[in-house]
């Protein structure tokens, strides 16, 4: 299986923050969710992948090209939606259609008009009068209306109501019906990612904690409920995080370690919180 995105030991250092040694692969036909706390480096990583920022070290490849910032042909095949709609409020959807057809060689005016209709966005209404959900749908419509094979979405569902978020997830699932397509999306709303993603990558303080298939990840761990002393007695290598006091405590452990304890199946959010706290 070919990879849409290949990152190897990617490092980017700022004065007060560093993204260290990030390696991950996004296979074609898959959706990968990028999770992490605020300031974990998700947007920085997406900026590097989209060519907005240069890496200091490592290899970054998107759709087989490693010259993302300058490869115009490559960018015809990458659709991006940032956390904020970048079209000025003075424009309307019809203007966006005309503007983008002057930027992308592969722009499909009819496809964009269909998305505008499907998303119930008025072609004539000024973007400044759109709700946040409408601006995000407009950005996604723009990302889908050229020959995109890879979609990169930065917090595209944040601030949206559950119905709109669900619509957007449906659009993404439609998009990857073509096995050459793939999606990389960051979000704070881990439940959305749990619904739609095949892979989950967890960034914490600039480091990649894991990048695994979602189903394997959910099957790998268990949350045990016991006393602090019982957790202390476990091999430290199988405990990935703990919370609570001496008498009522919980720990994220490998599933096979959970036998003999009262245990729950963790959600992705549980795994993220346990592992994040453990590393603080």
């Amino acid at each position, binding site marked *: 299986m070919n990879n849409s995105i290949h990152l190897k030991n990617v490092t980017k250092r700022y004065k007060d923050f560093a993204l260290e040694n990030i390696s991950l692969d996004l296979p074609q036909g898959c959706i990968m969710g990028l999770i992490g706390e605020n300031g974990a480096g998700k947007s920085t990583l997406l900026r590097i992948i*989209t*060519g*907005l*920022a240069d890496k200091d070290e490592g290899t970054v490849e998107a759709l087989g090209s490693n010259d993302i*910032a*300058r490869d*115009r*042909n490559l*960018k*015809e095949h*990458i659709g*991006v939606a*940032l956390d*904020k*709609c*970048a*079209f*000025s*409020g*003075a*424009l309307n959807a019809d*203007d966006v259609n*005309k*503007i*983008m*057809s*002057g*930027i*992308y*060689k592969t722009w499909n005016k009819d496809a964009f008009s269909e998305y505008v209709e499907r998303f119930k966005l008025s072609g004539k209404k000024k973007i400044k009068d759109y709700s946040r959900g409408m601006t995000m749908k407009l950005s996604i419509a723009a990302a889908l209306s050229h020959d995109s094979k890879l979609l*990169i979405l930065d917090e595209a569902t944040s601030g949206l109501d559950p119905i709109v978020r669900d619509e957007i997830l449906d659009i993404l699932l439609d998009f990857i019906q073509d096995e050459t397509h793939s999606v990389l999306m960051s979000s704070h709303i881990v439940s959305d990612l749990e619904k739609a993603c095949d892979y989950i990558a967890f960034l914490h303080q600039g480091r990649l904690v894991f990048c695994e298939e979602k189903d394997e990840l959910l099957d790998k761990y268990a949350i045990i409920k016991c006393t602090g002393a019982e957790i202390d007695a476990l091999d430290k290598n199988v405990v990935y995080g703990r919370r609570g006091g001496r008498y009522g405590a919980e720990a994220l452990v490998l599933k096979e370690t959970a036998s003999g304890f009262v245990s729950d199946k963790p959600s992705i959010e549980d795994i993220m919180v346990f592992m994040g706290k453990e590393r603080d």
Partner: protein
Amino acid sequence: MKGLILKDLMNLRQQWGAYLIIVALWGMISLKDGSLSVFSGCIGMLMVMLPATALAYDERSGWNAYALTMPVTRRDIVLSKYILALAAMAAAMILNLVFSAVVRENFFENVLGMFCTMCVMTIWLSILMPVRFKFDAEKARVISIVMVLIPVVIIVTAGISIDRAAGGVDMINEFPAIFAFAVFAAAAVAALAVSMWISVKIVNNKDF
């Protein structure tokens, strides 16, 4: 590039009405006076303001970062703003020529004066654009005001008297008009080329 310029023109649509009123007002005053010097200066200023206003729209919406994820280079972003300014200048010159033809009196002086004004405005644009690309709208506005004040302060503090300055003007007046225009035009083209080069360098090193 076509899409970038179209986007600027569409963003600036709201301003067109105000610009037209200003041009019409100054046009009427100039037609009445029979002199186009103020008119040339006025539309020259509008020309300089146009790319700066377009950049303010881009900044507010976060367009530039988004554009760089498209088949658009940093160089395209810079050049589109210069092309917008030059297109506005061409439109301003055509308008000036029409007005000069209507006024008829002093046609040659009016046209030459207009060309010289446009050259001065191009030099001003050339200085302003790198500042505008380097800093955000607020800082760039302050820096632009300071840049206008610096020559004034230098003249005042250096104690250059009005008589001496007037002598300089007399000296300039002694040059043939066409020679003065040639010097202005060469300076404007050189300034524009250097300005574009600096702006591309600034934007290449900018973090969007």
